[in-house]
């Protein structure tokens, strides 16, 4: 459908105002919110994610597309909730205690959102207790831990230990510049993401 293609194309090029205008037009012409989400926004974000993974897009371009999607979702979200539309899954994500670097975490959240996940973003420097409390509250399908520093990445193991001690068996995905597969194994993480795109790809396989 032409208008959904326009939403998709404008989202890919990060034209937020146009995406908002087209979203309103699509609703006015009788399209339902879920169709706009799936065939317009998420299809567009899939292209953005793929191009980023292939090295054909830069991070600000991914962020601009995400900004356009967020603005469109501000219109669609109440309608989606009303219609009881289900997400592909819920990702609870945050940077671990002591780490304020959230650029990688934000990028991962955007790509997961583009893949159809509901995101519960706990922000940066999240305490173990907060991860546990929020995991109990939201019952996510996946918990994402991010760290940029060799000093703070050690806290990832403590979060996983805390979750398991509280009988929360949700798979945990870890990522961040200093991490390795060996480190992820050593702290009993379920998935190691070598990049934000790699994380989405592995998570989709693990949760399928």
């Amino acid at each position, binding site marked *: 459908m032409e208008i959904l293609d326009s939403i998709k194309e404008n989202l890919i090029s990060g034209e937020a105002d146009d995406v908002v205008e087209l979203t309103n037009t699509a609703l006015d012409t009788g399209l339902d919110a879920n169709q706009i989400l799936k065939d317009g926004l998420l299809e567009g974000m899939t292209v953005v994610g793929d191009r980023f993974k292939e*090295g*054909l897009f*830069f*991070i*600000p371009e991914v962020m*601009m597309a995400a900004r356009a999607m967020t603005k469109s979702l501000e219109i669609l979200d109440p309608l989606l909730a009303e219609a009881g539309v289900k997400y592909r899954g819920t990702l609870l994500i945050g940077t671990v*205690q002591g780490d*304020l670097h959230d650029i990688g975490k934000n990028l991962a959240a955007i790509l997961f959102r583009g893949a159809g996940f509901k995101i519960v973003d706990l922000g940066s420097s999240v305490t173990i207790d907060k991860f546990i409390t929020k995991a109990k509250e939201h019952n996510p399908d996946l918990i994402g831990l991010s760290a940029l520093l060799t000093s703070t990445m050690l806290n990832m193991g403590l979060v996983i230990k805390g979750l398991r001690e509280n009988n929360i068996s949700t798979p945990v995905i870890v990522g961040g510049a200093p991490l390795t597969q060996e480190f992820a194994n050593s702290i009993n993480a379920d998935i190691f993401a070598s*990049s934000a795109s790699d994380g989405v790809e592995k998570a989709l396989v693990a949760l399928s």
Partner: protein
Amino acid sequence: MQGNIPVLSVSGKSLAEAWEKSVLEVYEKGCLIKTEYDKPNDPPSKDCTIIIVVEDPLAEPMIHRDMPGGLEDLQEYVMEVLEGIKDHWVRDPNDPDDTRWEYTYHQRLFNYALPETEKTFDQIEIVAQKLSEVPYTRRAQAITWKVWEDNTCYDPACLQSIWCRLLKGEDDQWLLNTNIRFRSNDAYKAAFMNMFALIQLQKKIAERISELSGINVILGRYVHQADSYHIYGSYMEEFENRFLRMHKERSFEERTYRYEDMKGIMEEAIPGILEKVAKMSETQDISKGK
């Protein structure tokens, strides 16, 4: 001669052009060397000493798209350096349990503190005052290094100093020339954002000198020097697959943004940034492990 770290220099009219050239230069001519941050299987880093000249620091396009974050992150970083929005996250050097940051550039430049005294120095104001009084002085500089802390701390500041001097150009117009020195600078994942924020600081200093002296001061060339300017081995594959590929496949215009065109988006992010920083303040005590 083998064993000599290469000394490279590049020049560009705009920031985006100069930075792009600098990264290509270190990739092509840098030496191979290991760093403290390399993981066991990482290839070696490319490294050099560099001098990057941005001839007209506010010339467009200012922004290169190959940044480690989005435009909102760039705005946040500018606010961190110029406004000190994260200064409350600097650790207490006397508290070994405090795991917060060792420094912010804003704190070191605008609020340089000495041990065992309450006295602090706003070095940027001092630079502006000196230059407004004696435009040709060679003594207008700000430093970040704290000898009594940084030689032994976990994460010492990379930026070392800012040096400024005024010179008259055409039509008797005063230009603020600025030299920045880093001891260590991640060329691919940090230098662009560093340079962008420091050019905003250069602009702030020029405006302050104008205010103090009553004479209009505009920006002269910005020189960015780094003792170790490097592309980490761990990023090399990404660098080759994205930066080098896009350098071949896209035009310069398609690899950059005009700051003027992006300013609206960046400023729209300010309330969200301030909200995030306020939340950081709430978690501050918890993060100290207390």
